């Protein structure tokens, strides 16, 4: 059975080599954005953690910051470790590339760059993979709005649910600045007869 590798043990390994590079927050290992490559290298090479297989590399747009998630798997010891790295700068998010450590990271990093816009320094061939080069914006970002009238991507509530308790965690959604293609307050865009404005 693949066991979850203990995050604190991994943190000791990383900190022993590069002090202050890793910290554990509610059971998940977070790495310093600048130290990611070195830390993952030590995790891969150390005999005890032996995380030789990069299973998954993806990113999540937590609206205040980007979160790049790595799932590292040890084949011989059969344990899996989830490592995260926060990128706070939303204008030009950048992170050191893992292509030096794992050859498998080439395509997955290009995908994250293509859909999130996170630049990976040191990646030999960082180009958009799915979309054409002139594509405006990065689709998987929460503020890449497709449907007019939406504050951000995502389903606010079940269709049958009423409006007010649509969002369980009030206050967790920061109000972001007005976006040009938001509907103007005068309501020139009439959504439906009931006139129920969602913004």
């Amino acid at each position, binding site marked *: 059975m693949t066991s979850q590798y203990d995050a604190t043990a991994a943190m000791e390994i990383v900190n022993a080599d590069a002090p202050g590079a890793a910290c554990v927050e509610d059971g998940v290992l977070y790495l310093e954005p600048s130290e990611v490559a070195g830390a993952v290298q030590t995790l891969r090479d150390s005999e005890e953690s*032996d995380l*030789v*297989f990069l299973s998954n590399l993806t990113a999540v747009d937590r609206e205040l910051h980007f979160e790049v998630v790595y799932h590292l798997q*040890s*084949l*011989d*010891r*059969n344990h899996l470790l989830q490592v995260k790295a926060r990128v706070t700068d939303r204008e030009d998010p950048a992170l050191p590339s893992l292509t030096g450590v794992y050859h498998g990271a080439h395509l997955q990093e290009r995908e994250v760059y293509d859909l999130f816009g996170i630049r990976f320094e040191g990646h030999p061939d960082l180009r958009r993979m799915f979309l054409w080069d002139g594509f405006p914006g990065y689709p998987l970002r929460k503020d890449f709005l497709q449907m007019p009238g939406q504050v951000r991507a995502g389903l606010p509530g079940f269709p049958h649910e009423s409006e007010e308790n649509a969002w369980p965690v009030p206050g967790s959604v920061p109000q972001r600045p007005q976006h040009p293609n938001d509907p103007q307050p005068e309501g020139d865009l009439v959504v439906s007869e009931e006139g129920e404005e969602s913004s």
Partner: protein
Amino acid sequence: MTDPAGLVSVLGSTLGAWYDFRDLNNLQRLITEWIADWGPDWLASIIAGVLGTLGILGVIGPTLLILIWVERKVIARFQQRYGPNRVGPKGLLQPVADAVKLILKEQLAPRAADKLIFFLPPVLIFVPGVLIWGVLPFGPRMSVADLNVGVLFLLAVSGTTVLVIFMAGWSSNNKYALFGAMRAVAMSISYEVPMVLALLTLVVFSGTMSINGIVQWQQQEDVIFILLFPLSAIAFFFAASAELNRTPADISEAESEIVAGYHTEYSGMRFGLFYAVELGNTLVVSAFIATFFLGGWWLWGLDQWVPSWIILLVKTGAVYFLLIWTRGTLPRLRVDQLMGFCWKALVPATLLFVVVAFVERTLLISEGWDTTVALPVMAVINIALTLGAIVLFARVSRPAPLRRPARIRMAGAQIGGLRAARQVASRTEEPQLQVGGD
């Protein structure tokens, strides 16, 4: 009273009559004589020529249509499906439907194509396809042109197809077509050598270059050449199938690699011509294989009763089935493997058999052996030589990766990464699946 062509007269008076369809030559001879006595003789020769070509086109036309149907049905049967059965009774009209479809399709030409050289190949490829039929002997006196350099004529005409394929590939201004053309040219040039050498053994042994002469020699000696020179037969079969671009040597129109090879840019009836000529060539090549190695229109005396051209068509059908069979089952060889096989295997083998033919021929003549005894002995020797050559080649020429067997082991309990891999690899007991290797 036997007819000069060796036909036994069945009903006494039928011999030589125009309706004796066993030897179609009677018909032609009577018509030309009838014209000759009232009209100018040059008209008679022209009519004879026209009759000959009409006979050939009469044979090619329907057999081509039926062959397309037969090939698709047989390959379908290999692949556990029915093959064409919608158009006409049991799908017989499918080839007609294909032809009509191709005629109606629009004939595109790439904009940057070299117009003159782009439009010539479909016509020019038809010329050698039909010319070759002229030399094929359907019966003792039934061949349009019984040249005494028949074998050389056959090689010369099949040599010109190389040029036409090159023109097609070069002028369609398309990378795949260029690849296809280069491959086709390189391959048919190198496969002409084993073809020439294979036929050389026959010419040397039968002493004549005219194809009818070869068949008559086999009739005289009551032996068919495939028994005497099996390796030449195999070499000629493979070289001819390579010349025709058929699997396992269809690299010049390899669908999976270079889309459709030299006729990628051709559409409509132009592609139809390429396709029809390819099938026509397959038919004529299997007819020649039957003539050279299986005794052509002669079958141990049967040809005096049954019309000779029926025997030839039956043998051609058998060889044609063999060609379909290889096309249906064998995967394709790579370009360099094909070239290697030609120069490293076929050419030395056929050279060996040319020498063997010379030696046996001179022994036969100088010693004056009685052929009824000498030929079977030679046949046995030659068959042994063939098997020896094939086994020797199979052992010598295996490339490195093929020497080691491919093994599949079951991981059992050891699931993991590199360490588990080493443990699985180091296991000593017999692997579950072992394939290849010597």
